């Protein structure tokens, strides 16, 4: 062995290779968790079983299918984001693996980003699996209903048949489902980043999970509370500053709930989708930086 650190490139303040190494390792760690498979199987069963739920008309059937499936996807990814992220840093500190990693030339910011992107990859994989299951179920039901309708209306005029088929197609598989799925994913990303931030100063996993469950509920209710507050109080700068602070600590999760519109087959305006995506990315970025900031000053 030479007396020099040979064969290694000069240190860079940010290295994608290092972040990628931490990301893939985090993904491997998370896929070893039994809770991941239990939650995934549970969500897939729920999506699959929505086929057998009571319905009167095909519109109702598709509505229930979308409602149950998107609801299951939303809850599952949110739960997974919180549970998977809450343990990452405390576990590394408890096992002292964090010492070995940070004693290497790895900036703390890269460690945080690597951990988070590992969770986001896991969420992407589970989202892809669930979306594939959901779209397959929806497609199969759509085909069955189309065949049944064709059989029942075999004697009807051509135009009437075309109208009926168009109505079925528009209420089943349509392009508006995709932004809905993207926004469910972004909500999970936001929750993962927020959980990571909380876990940088929490002392136990349970504390992080409890705090996140509280934030989850307040986040869904805060829009209503804010409207009520604004009705009762003046809209001075102090009120606005206070509300902005509340919105930072408790993100308005109701904004990410576009399922209701998708369920009824309503088209979601592109502007609203773009605004929600920007908000999701903004929150995720802010929480990642906050997590990195707290972790930077943490005594290990």
């Amino acid at each position, binding site marked *: *062995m*030479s*007396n*020099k*650190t*040979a*064969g*290694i*490139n000069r*240190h860079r*303040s940010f*290295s994608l*290779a*290092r972040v*990628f*190494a*931490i990301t893939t*390792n985090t993904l*491997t*760690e998370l896929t*070893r968790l039994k809770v991941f498979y239990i939650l995934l199987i549970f969500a897939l069963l729920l999506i699959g079983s929505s086929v057998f739920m009571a319905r009167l008309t095909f519109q109702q059937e598709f509505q229930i299918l979308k409602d149950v499936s998107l609801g299951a996807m939303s809850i599952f990814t949110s739960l997974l984001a919180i549970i998977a992220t809450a343990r990452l840093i405390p576990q590394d500190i408890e*096992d*002292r*693996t964090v*010492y*070995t*990693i*940070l*004693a*290497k*030339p*790895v*900036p703390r910011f890269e460690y945080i980003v690597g951990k988070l992107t590992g969770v986001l990859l896991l969420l992407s994989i589970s989202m892809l699996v669930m979306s594939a299951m959901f779209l397959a179920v929806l497609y199969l039901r759509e085909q069955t209903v189309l065949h049944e309708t064709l059989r029942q209306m075999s004697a009807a005029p051509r135009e009437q048949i075309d109208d009926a088929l168009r109505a079925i197609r528009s209420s089943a598989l349509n392009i508006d489902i995709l932004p809905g799925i993207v926004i469910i994913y972004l909500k999970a990303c936001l929750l993962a980043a927020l959980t990571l931030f909380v876990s940088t100063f929490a002392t136990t996993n349970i504390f992080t999970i409890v705090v996140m469950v509280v934030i989850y509920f307040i986040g869904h209710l805060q829009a209503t509370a804010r409207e009520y507050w604004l009705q009762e109080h003046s809209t001075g700068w102090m009120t606005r500053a206070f509300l902005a602070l509340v919105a930072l600590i408790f993100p308005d999760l109701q904004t990410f709930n576009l399922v209701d519109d998708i369920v009824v087959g309503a088209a979601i305006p592109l502007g609203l989708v773009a605004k929600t995506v920007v908000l999701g990315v903004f929150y995720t970025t802010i929480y990642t930086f906050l997590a990195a900031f707290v972790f930077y*000053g943490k*005594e*290990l």
Partner: protein
Amino acid sequence: MSDAAVTVSGLTKVFPVPFHREPVIAVRNLDLRIEPGEVYGLLGPNGSGKSTTLKIILGLVSPTRGRTEIFGRDSSLVESREAVGFLPENPYFYKYLTGEETLRFFGKLCGLSGSRLRERADQLLELVGLTNVRSRRLSTYSKGMLQRIGLAQALIHEPKLVVLDEPTAGVDPAGSCDIRNLIVDLKRRGITVLLSSHLLAQAQEICDHVGILANGVLVREGRLEELIAIENRTELVLENASDALVDRINALATSSNAKLIARRRSTTTLERLFLDATNNPKEKS
């Protein structure tokens, strides 16, 4: 003067204790200088501040006052860690990784990749005697094997300084002997070793310099042989000496105003006896 491997100047670390008036002072005004190529033992009882000092040197904990440098670079800077390999006390690595995957993971963190990384992993698995178990998950490794894979990851990027926190704690005599031999080998290769320990017999065998910490204060420091030498005594070890010869030596000593203090048969160490009895097995399977 060339850069020291480690320089610690005026280091103090105070841990605030919530709801208590008195904060804990882990390290008080510590000064150290470790020269390149030597094995330095930081000794002391539990809670004396050894691990805190090592963590500050590695940038894991920030000092309250003072400064630490590694080869002339401020150790709070991430770049300074390019020159350092660290083995924490009782390390737990990711249990789901194999020995080889562990080395590859840490190698990537140090900027290694491709064939260079593969070569380094192969060399180090060979060096620490874990080539045969490279594909086994760490969850199946014994404590001694974990310690050896820990040492291998510390060496993955060919550091000039290796910091070992209680490297033989909880390891059986055979594993402990392996680690000691590896440390001696590192010294032979010109690598500076800073280790903390409270196993004094082992430290005595391998350290060039020692510093003894008590309650966060460096109470003794210097070259080991100078610290433990007894000025006015000399030891003779004889083989095949008859009682008559020893009596004559004693008489000669007495006539020269010297005094024979002890006369006993040489013994082996309990560790050597244990290793010979158990045939010093290496955990290769």
